[in-house]
């Protein structure tokens, strides 16, 4: 089949554009690592693109980890992300399964309620959320972040999983029921394992979003021992006005980027399919 660009000059230009953009996305990652190994002097007297001088300041990483308490923030981010992803998945999978397989009074309106909530700008909820969490004593707690994040990912999860459950053949459930499995047994032992690809896709997308989330984290947490990584990055960079520690700042960025980057490398395909599934509204 004849696809492709015939004109070699045009082809070369297009290649150049792709390469330039490729550099623009890869270079910041490299730059983050290199700048994390510099001291302030090198920031002020050398060009930003110059390589770090020897000896490389690997201690910037341990400095940020211990002195800036990134060990705590990293731990907080992991607990919050894991907790809310799991809770969100459980709550959306159960509802999605029932909505996909059972008709009952109001089932359509319930589905519409979840779907249309995706159209509501979440900023609208920020102020009441702060007071709600305050009255529930969930301000400055990881649990508070977990429930809010879990709730914020429900609609997306339900939307994708309803489609997913509908695509699974009904015969499997019927066979399970004939074999004497209960409703719960059918769901947990048959349907849930079968829907693993869908669950993983949603879990990955949610992990990325929650790990990176900033606004809710900033509003619901002002106790430093409960900060997540993005919240601390925001604060750290604001502090740079009177406390210049550029190297450690880049080391901090590095700690925030690396986990999602690793996740992306392993789950590229799932992420792509999650995007496509979520967008077919």
């Amino acid at each position: 089949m004849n696809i492709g660009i015939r004109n070699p000059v045009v082809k070369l230009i297009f290649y150049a554009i792709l390469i330039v953009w490729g550099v623009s996305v890869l270079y910041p990652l490299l730059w983050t690592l290199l700048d994390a190994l510099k001291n302030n002097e090198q920031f002020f007297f050398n060009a930003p693109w110059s390589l770090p001088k020897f000896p490389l300041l690997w201690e910037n990483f341990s400095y940020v980890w211990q002195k800036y308490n990134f060990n705590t923030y990293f731990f907080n981010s992991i607990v919050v992300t894991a907790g809310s992803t799991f809770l969100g998945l459980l709550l959306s999978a159960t509802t999605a399964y029932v909505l996909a397989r059972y008709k009952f009074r109001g089932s359509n309106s319930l589905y519409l309620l979840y779907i249309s909530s995706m159209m509501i700008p979440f900023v609208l909820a920020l102020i009441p959320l702060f007071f709600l969490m305050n009255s529930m004593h969930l301000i400055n707690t990881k649990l508070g972040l977990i429930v809010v994040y879990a709730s914020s990912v429900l609609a997306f999860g339900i939307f994708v999983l309803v489609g997913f459950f509908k695509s699974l053949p009904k015969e499997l459930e019927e066979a399970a029921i004939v074999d004497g499995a209960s409703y719960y047994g059918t769901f947990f032992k048959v349907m849930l394992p079968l829907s693993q690809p869908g669950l993983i896709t949603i879990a990955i997308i949610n992990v990325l979003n929650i790990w990176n989330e900033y606004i809710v984290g900033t509003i619901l947490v002002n106790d430093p021992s409960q900060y997540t990584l993005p919240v601390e990055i925001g604060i750290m960079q604001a502090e740079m006005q009177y406390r210049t520690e550029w190297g450690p700042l880049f080391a901090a960025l590095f700690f925030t980027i690396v986990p999602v980057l690793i996740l992306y490398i392993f789950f590229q395909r799932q992420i792509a399919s999650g995007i496509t599934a979520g967008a077919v509204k």
Partner: protein
Amino acid sequence: MNSGTAKWQRNVFIASFILPTLVFFGIFTIYPVVQGLYYSFFEWSGMSEHKTFIGFDNFKDMFHDPIIWRAIGNDYFLVAGKVVGIMVIATFFAVALTRFGFKMAGFFRSIFFIPNVISVVVIGVLWNFIYNPQIGFLNAFLSLFTKDQVTIAWLGFTSHTIWMLLPPAIWAGIGFYMILLIAAIQSIPASYYEAANLEGAGQWKQFRNITIPLVWEQIKVSVLNIMMTTLNGSFVIVWIMTQGGPDNSTQVMGSYLYQMAFRQYHFGYGASIGFVILVLSLITTIVLQRLMRHETVEMS
């Protein structure tokens, strides 16, 4: 009797799978959203239980608040800039990586998505370094061509600083929409392109007459999504890079809401900004859908 228990069991099962989610969603999403609308009719410092009902006064105040108008303007500037910038570049990449037969298309596709997995906070900090007047990338680069050291404060202009926030926003958004469009293009039957090739239609003609009409649905979704996420979330990049400054010139509705509520304790006024964001995003959705529906009819 037996069928009665069966029905009962079925209902219990449905309820046990529906209700926990619904209650949870009701408490942590629906209730706050409704409260947000409700608060916008009050004057409230947040510190006491005492709220004063003031009807539409918050909204009336907005008419005389120059900052809110600038924030709305900035929001729509970002929406327009991002829609054009992201859609043009993402469409180009999506077509280039599927239709042009480039080697390493898969590699480019993978790396182009990287900015989308990185937190906007991190992206804001990185771009602050590009723009930094003393140690920034941009000034250092420009200094290569000038005799004196360039020390432009890219984020400190008294006007038009909002322009500086457009490149990071576009850069960070491309990958997502590119993936979306790639999937759409790949689902177009190859026979369409083969037929076009036989008739001697070049790449441009194929793009105009096959690709665009057949991925129009995804283009529409993308435009709407860019609009929604911008009105809803441009706050983060603004807050990290300029905090709405200098002199409120880069304020967007989200950042102004945050500042009014959580910095200046005008929670009622903040809530009414949230109300405006909701109304504007609904209106814009309807308008955009109208505009783009017209296009489809023309194409087919």
